[in-house]
């Protein structure tokens, strides 16, 4: 591996170039160049872009990032990872600054034919296997950050599940950043390919031990006919970090996909989900919980394109906003002219806890045929004073009563998590976060 780190120009991200390590297939070089050309031509998004209307990327672009390179030293141990990301009992792949760290990872026995490995190892040994996934990226809807990921990504997880296989234990992907003194950008790219009628659970955890860094991740999930994949994502980056992620999903006929995203950390975080329903009868569920406080900014754009008939999509996003936190829900459903029998719903609920928090919600529906059932709803409000009164009348102190009700609001999302160890871990994380907000909020009645 090369050790000559590319020097970042004063322009920060815009000046980055891929640290090519010499032994790459030609098609991959083309993709990288195309990514960089895209960024050079279109530039980075501004508030003028409808999809970025509420998220200012200026603070990210101002940082003189260096790209993370493979083989960099890290100061992490397996037990440190347990503490940061938890042990869910199954296979765990750990990526340090975006690069696979085998010494921190655990591999369990998996059904025959299953591949759970790092993207870099496949690129080095059997690159052609990746071509169908990388050469035709799922999303034609590039923006500068996904283009940059295409240009810079060298590693990430590669999971391929054979038809009819069932993987009971969750596959845990841990992305840990350890930036040290100079700002780092890591660009993990992960691919999950679930064979026909296979079943699996994937958990992505993004954590950091501090410093200024940017995680610019792209995860692609391809489900063949009848596959069932549950995806969880816990974003618990350091408060000084930036997190930009895109999850692109292509469900097959009668397949079922669900994702639950929890946003806890990062100064600016954007978790984008894009699902293209091109095969009939698929079902997708998108859930999200975001808890910005301090000066955090959490943006949650979703785009579900109903192209094929008889697909179902469900979205439920909830936000609890404290401090100077800002939350954004930017949901978008497009029902194409041939998507007959579409059933789509989209709900966003927000709880504002402080005078200085802000929420912007924009549930959009675009419908081009008549045989549909689409609903969406958004609400912004505060705790039910009668419920607070009820608890107080039974001797629960004011602060605590509010805390219980706030937790109950967020708790609905946690109940939906099907992986036991993950749920209990996340529950305590959320409780800890809401307690922190409670003590910060003493002046607030």
């Amino acid at each position: 591996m090369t050790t000559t780190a590319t020097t970042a120009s004063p322009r920060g991200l815009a000046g980055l170039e891929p640290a090519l390590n010499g032994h790459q297939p030609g098609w991959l070089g083309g993709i990288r160049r195309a990514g960089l050309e895209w960024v050079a031509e279109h530039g980075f998004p501004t508030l003028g872009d409808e999809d970025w209307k509420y998220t200012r990327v200026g603070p990210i672009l101002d940082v003189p990032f260096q790209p993370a390179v493979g083989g960099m030293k890290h100061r992490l141990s397996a037990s440190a990872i347990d503490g940061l990301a938890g042990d869910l009992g199954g296979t765990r792949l750990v990526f340090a600054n975006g690069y696979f760290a085998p010494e921190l990872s655990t591999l369990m026995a998996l059904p025959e034919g299953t591949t759970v490995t790092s993207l870099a190892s496949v690129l080095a040994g059997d690159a052609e296997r990746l071509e169908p996934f990388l050469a035709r990226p799922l999303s034609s809807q590039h923006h500068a950050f996904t283009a940059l990921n295409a240009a810079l990504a060298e590693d990430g997880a590669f999971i391929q599940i054979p038809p009819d296989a069932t993987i009971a234990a969750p596959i845990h992907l841990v992305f840990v950043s350890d930036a040290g003194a100079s700002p780092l950008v890591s660009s993990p790219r992960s691919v999950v390919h679930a064979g026909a009628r296979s079943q699996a659970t994937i958990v992505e955890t993004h954590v950091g031990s501090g410093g200024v860094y940017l995680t610019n991740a792209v995860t692609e999930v391809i489900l063949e006919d009848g596959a069932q994949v549950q995806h969880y994502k816990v974003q618990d980056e350091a408060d000084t970090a930036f997190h930009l992620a895109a999850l692109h999903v292509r469900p097959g006929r009668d397949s079922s996909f669900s994702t639950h995203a929890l946003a806890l950390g990062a100064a600016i975080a954007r978790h984008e989900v894009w699902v293209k329903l091109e095969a009939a009868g698929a079902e997708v569920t998108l859930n999200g919980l975001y808890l910005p406080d301090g000066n955090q900014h959490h943006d949650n754009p979703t785009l579900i394109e109903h192209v094929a008939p008889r697909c179902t999509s469900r979205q439920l996003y909830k936000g609890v906003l404290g401090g100077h936190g800002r939350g954004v829900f930017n949901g978008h459903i497009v029902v194409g002219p041939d998507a007959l029998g579409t059933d789509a719903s989209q709900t966003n609920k927000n709880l504002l806890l402080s005078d200085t928090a802000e929420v912007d919600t924009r549930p959009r529906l675009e419908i081009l045929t008549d045989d549909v059932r689409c609903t969406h709803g958004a609400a912004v409000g505060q705790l039910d004073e009668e419920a607070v009164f009820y608890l107080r009348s039974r001797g629960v102190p004011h602060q605590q009563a509010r805390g219980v009700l706030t937790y109950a609001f967020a708790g609905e999302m946690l109940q939906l998590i099907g992986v036991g160890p993950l749920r209990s871990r996340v529950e305590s994380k959320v409780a800890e976060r809401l307690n922190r907000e409670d003590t910060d909020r003493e002046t607030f009645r």
Partner: protein
Amino acid sequence: MTDVSSEVREFASREYQYGFVTDLETDVAPRGLNEDVIRLISSKKNEPDWMLEWRLKAYRGWLTMEEPTWQKANYAPIDYQDIIYYAAPKPKVALTSLDEVDPEVLAMFDKLGISLAEQERLSGVAVDAIVDSVSVATTFKEKLADVGVIFCSFSEAVQCHPELVKRYLGTVVPRRDNFFAALNSAVFSDGSFCFIPKGVRCPMELSTYFRINAADTGQFERTLIIAEEGASVSYLEGCTAPMRDTNQLHAAVVELVALDDAQIKYSTVQNWYPGDAEGRGGIYNFVTKRGKCAGVNSKISWTQVETGSAITWKYPGVILQGDNSVGEFYSVALTANHQQADTGTKMIHIGKNTSSTIVSKAISAGHGQNTYRGLVKVLDSASGARNHTQCDSLLLGGDCGAHTFPYVEVKNPTAQVEHEASTSKIGEDQLFYCRQRGIPEEDAVSMIVNGFCREVFKELPMEFAVEAQKLLSVSLEGSVG
């Protein structure tokens, strides 16, 4: 059940009922727009210098602006130099009573079913009838003057009440608010002016009919309504326009100002020529309407029924500045054939305990594209703000579209904002139920659609409610979901 697509086709081929051209002598400005044309408009109207200056400033602002493209509408580029910006019907003599009004004008109103004479005698509605931008007759003026209400054409207001116009013009929609508002500010030809003094409850519903008559004449009305402390008024606006081949641009501006405890209710029925079955012709309706609840406890309510125009692009909004002020928006928008409507509202909550209600009903048929686009913004000063939004869309046929783009921005933790929306096709069960009881399919559709819109219709003044229901039934002839 009848074949759906043939029913829809039948609906799509419905003829525009109000298409006729009245031959009036018009006083026309040369095509195109420059400072000379603005000076011409201003001098034709014998305006004071400050008004001309205001127009010129708006024009210079407009020159620096770009036409917006974000709305969900497709249309050929507009050549602003190919538009006639001023046309006034030539009154034969100075008018003192209805008898002196051009008989052709009267006949045209008769055709439209709003004979002035009849209205004056029977309905008790004061009509400020406008044909191609200039008021030709104003009724009930004396009666209104008795209580101190000023209701006149905009040009007359500039002449007779310059201090009021000067004080309020552009305070709600600034000259450079947006591209079309700036254009309007530069070239507006006429419109209505209404002033309700302190404590007066306007004794009658005020009404004005705008009609587009001369070919290729853009219409740029400007309406200004001011309700002083404790005053209240209900204002009705209705439109039909003759059939045309080339698109006509219509960029109106409406400004409402409500001071302490004042109430303004503004109702619109818009039925301009929507273009033919292929989407040729039809009016471009790019309108800026905004009200300001400047005083405490004030209330502004918008009600609109939009069935016409090739493209409708309007967002009647309310700036809720005074504490406890109330904003309302009730809308029915119907798009058929190749009509496109991008409409909604903006509710800006600034004062404490302000509340707003939005009810939007969209009906799409044929190749119609119907978009609700709304903004609810709660600033950090707006403690206790409340909003409830309900947008429902009904789809008739597989080629139409219904879109919902709400924006909710909240910066105050005591605010309560709710948005609900649903989109579905007309209920098969409901249709079946009606038909089973011997109600023809067409009547059943009309009944269901009218029921779907009932929440909005009940907000309309009685005269308009009847007209609106009739309009919708006519529009739905032969359509079925």
